């Protein structure tokens, strides 16, 4: 059973990192700036998921806060980027 969980964790890690890789490709390709913002935002989300996976892998709660902090403040840079694109400045 341990093995099953390990394999599934490894598979999940692989998938999530692969997802990040795909996002990165979108980040590179663009073509519009909003695409890039979206891609970056998704990379952050994937990173959050990855932290959760790490937590399960190591059976440790230490990784949780990091994921939580992304959930709480990860959107700030995306919103800032979006606002910059929309309004030309982020704090008016």
């Amino acid at each position: 059973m341990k093995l099953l969980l390990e394999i599934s964790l490894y598979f999940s890690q692989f998938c999530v990192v692969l997802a990040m890789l795909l996002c990165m490709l979108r980040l590179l390709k663009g073509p519009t700036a909003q695409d890039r913002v979206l891609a970056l935002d998704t990379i952050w989300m994937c990173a959050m998921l990855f932290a959760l996976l790490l937590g399960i892998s190591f059976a440790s709660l230490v990784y949780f806060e990091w994921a939580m902090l992304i959930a709480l403040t990860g959107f700030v840079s995306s919103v800032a980027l979006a606002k910059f694109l929309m309004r030309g400045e982020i704090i008016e």
Partner: protein
Amino acid sequence: MTLLLLLLLPFLGCVIAACMPAYARNREAWFAAFIALCGLLLTLSLYPEVSSGIVIKHELAWLPMFNLNLVLRMDGLAWLFSVLIQGICLLVVLYARYYMSPKDPVPRFFAFLLAFMGAMQGVVISGNLIQLVMFWELTSLTSFLLIGYWHHRADARRGARMAFTVTSIGGLCLLAGVLLLGYIAGSYDLDAVLASADVIRAHQAYAPALLLIALGALTKSAQFPFHFWLPHAMAAPTPVSAYLHSATMVKAGIFLLMRLWPVLAGTPEWTWIIGTAGVCTMLIGAYLAIFQHDLKGLLAYSTISHLGLITCLLGIGTPLAMVAAIFHTLNHAIFKASLFMAVGIIDHESGTRDMRKLSGLSRLMPYTATLAIVASAAMAGVPLLNGFLSKEMFFAEALLVGASTNWWMSAAAVLMGVFGVAYSMRFISVFFGARATELPKQPHEPPRWMRFPVELLVLCCLIVGVAPQLSIGVPLQTAAASVLGERLPDYNLAIWHGINTPLIMSVLAFALGILLFKVLKYRFNLLQSIHIPVLYRFNGKQAYESSMLILASSAARLERLFSTRRLQPQLFLLVLAGLFASALMLQAMPDFKHAWSVDNVNLPFAMLWLVGCTCAVCAAWQAKYHRLAALMLVGGTGIVTSLTFLWLSAPDLALTQLMVETVTTVLLLLGLRWLPSRISARKMNLVASNRDKLRRSRDLVIAIIAGSVMFVISYFVLLHPANFTISNFFLDNAVPGGGGTNVVNVLLVDFRNFDTLGEITVLSIVALTVYALLRRFRPAQESIGIPAQQANQVDPASRQTPAEQANSGYLLIPGIYLRLLLPVIGISAAYFFMRGHNLPGGGFIAGLVFAVGMIIQYMLAGTVWIESRLKLNPHRWIAVGIGLACFTGLGSLLLGYPFLTTHTAHVTVPLLGEIHLPSAFIFDLGVFAVVVGTTMLILIALAHQSVRSHRVPGAQQDNSTAASREIR
């Protein structure tokens, strides 16, 4: 003691003189004369001792570790020079009283003159070679000031600069030479050096030392080829010339050669260097003197010539030549001083020194004319005058050297005599002939006391010329004895030695000299000719300026070649230096064979870094034209880095990096608003030049090498197992000593809290600097207007204020979330703060989280609305934070512990149980406050620029253009 007084008196006088009122000509003069007189009397008072052969010494401890004490030492030679220095100074001061215009601000003049006298005095009574060099340089400096006294005149400035440049180069050489001499002799003390004469001459460093000292002496004494500065020094007021070029400045070099004569002379090197320089100088000087039109110029070249003569005598190296040299030094001082003063009188009274204009002056100023003629006769070496005697001695010595093979020495001596007679004739010719009519002033006799010094000096010429033994015999002998010691030869200072070869040479010189003058005058129109035959090409003035200019410009070229004012090459060099430093690592390459195995690779981790690295590389590629894309790509690398920290057991780092990522993104976006867009080279149809391509490929190569080096070092370090580190201590003591289980946090707030204190200081400094800078920020012209996005009417928000957008516009709905988020983030910040000591978190992270929460509010509703409702005052946060951290640290002082020692208070509260309150907690609170304060201050200060620039009246007009620049 007398010696010290003798030395200090002039400097004291200098200070007092400088403080006198600007036009107190009389008071100044009398005061300076008083000082000089005191000096003279002091010197004379030492005569009994000195004449009995005693060397008076006075020693003051200064730098015993370098064998360097101040030694004042008066012997016969020094005494003779002292008398000259003080005596002629007295006369010059007297003369200057009349010479200087009432409009001249004389305090400066007399102060400099006295200082110069002091320096000169210092040179002659120095009993230590280093000390001698010090005074030597001081004479250069003070003479520079004296020559440049009329500094509003270009020629005075140039003369001063030339003199100073040449003599200070010589001074540096002298310093080097003296150091060598001291090195050989083991002491700089003059007596010690003189005592080890044989050792010195035998030493291998003798030749360089001699050369260096000779350079010093020859430059100072204006010897060929360094003679060119002296004529230009004539731009000084005449009293200065009279003083500097008769008895003092130029004689310093002579003095030095005499002083070191026992040590350095007597070798072929000495004869060659000194003798050759002397011969050349005396001939060239005398030759050039003939063709001068300026009276002072003539005297200047004649001075050069006579100095050459003395140098030549010293170069000959026989004891008798030494006596002759001393004697001629004295004689030259006397007649040359009087001649300069006479010329000064002529200049002063007639308004010109140009011999082409002056003639027949003897009828207008007969008395002065007589004096001048007598003095110039002394200069020419007419019998019964002092010049004759020393010249005869010179001829005799020249014969001695040139007796058998080196006949050229005798020939040179005669030739010099010929020229000397010729220029003396030329000099006195101004007194004869028709009365000049077109003079600036009508010449007449000068005031009685202005003439007095000349009279006195001419009288001396006569007395010495007529009764040499009686008048000067003993002092001369004392002086010579102090140099020569036991080698003092027998000599006879008689006027008449019978008809011998020197006399014949003299007669020959006279005859030929007069002939030469006549020929030149009547055949070659000497009196009006502009060009100097043969040597006319050499223009010292232009040569000096040109060489200075070439020196400066070639230095500038060199400097440009070996430096840069641009940043990129500097960074390139810096990286290169780093690479060179890292190259050391290559000596210790471990074998990487086992290291390349694949089981070392964790696939998700590798893929993660594939993302991170690709983002980094693409950011590097995009940063020029696609700043926003680059910024986002860097963000990709950042999140990967943060995740790596998390993965590799550094949760605190991961959290901090994460928050810093967010804040940095916001920061850069705030900045990007003020960076106008770049139009790519392709769009502008620009093609990169080959040079650019070359540079890019060079940079690329360097970057790749640097990266590879970094890779190798990193891998090396990783494969090399760590030995014992101090970290085990931290792990062991974190709980018992630091009271926290999060060792990283305990390190930050306890073990190494001093670092943290410095770190928050850096943060504060940066924030304050940013604030200060942004107060005076002027944005780029293109970005002053409101952004194109806001100017475009398509968006209904363009007609709303930020507050309207947030409270009723498109941000209304997001705003509901974002506003709800503020207390949530606040609670989270508190959470991260509270747990920091035991679990990942702490003041830094909490501060950043809180700041991000605030930033969201600013982004939502704009600065104006937020600040109308909440005054955050980040300055206070910063100051309070630093204060908290400091006072926590100071608290431990009260308990007797070192600064920043942490303590834990254990409080038992009824309901809650035992609560641990470590003082590190308050310290961390300070950190929190500083982080919040700095982050907010930086971001808000940047954000405020938008508000400020919108107030700019011209901004609205710019809308049309702004709209046309709308982004694609």
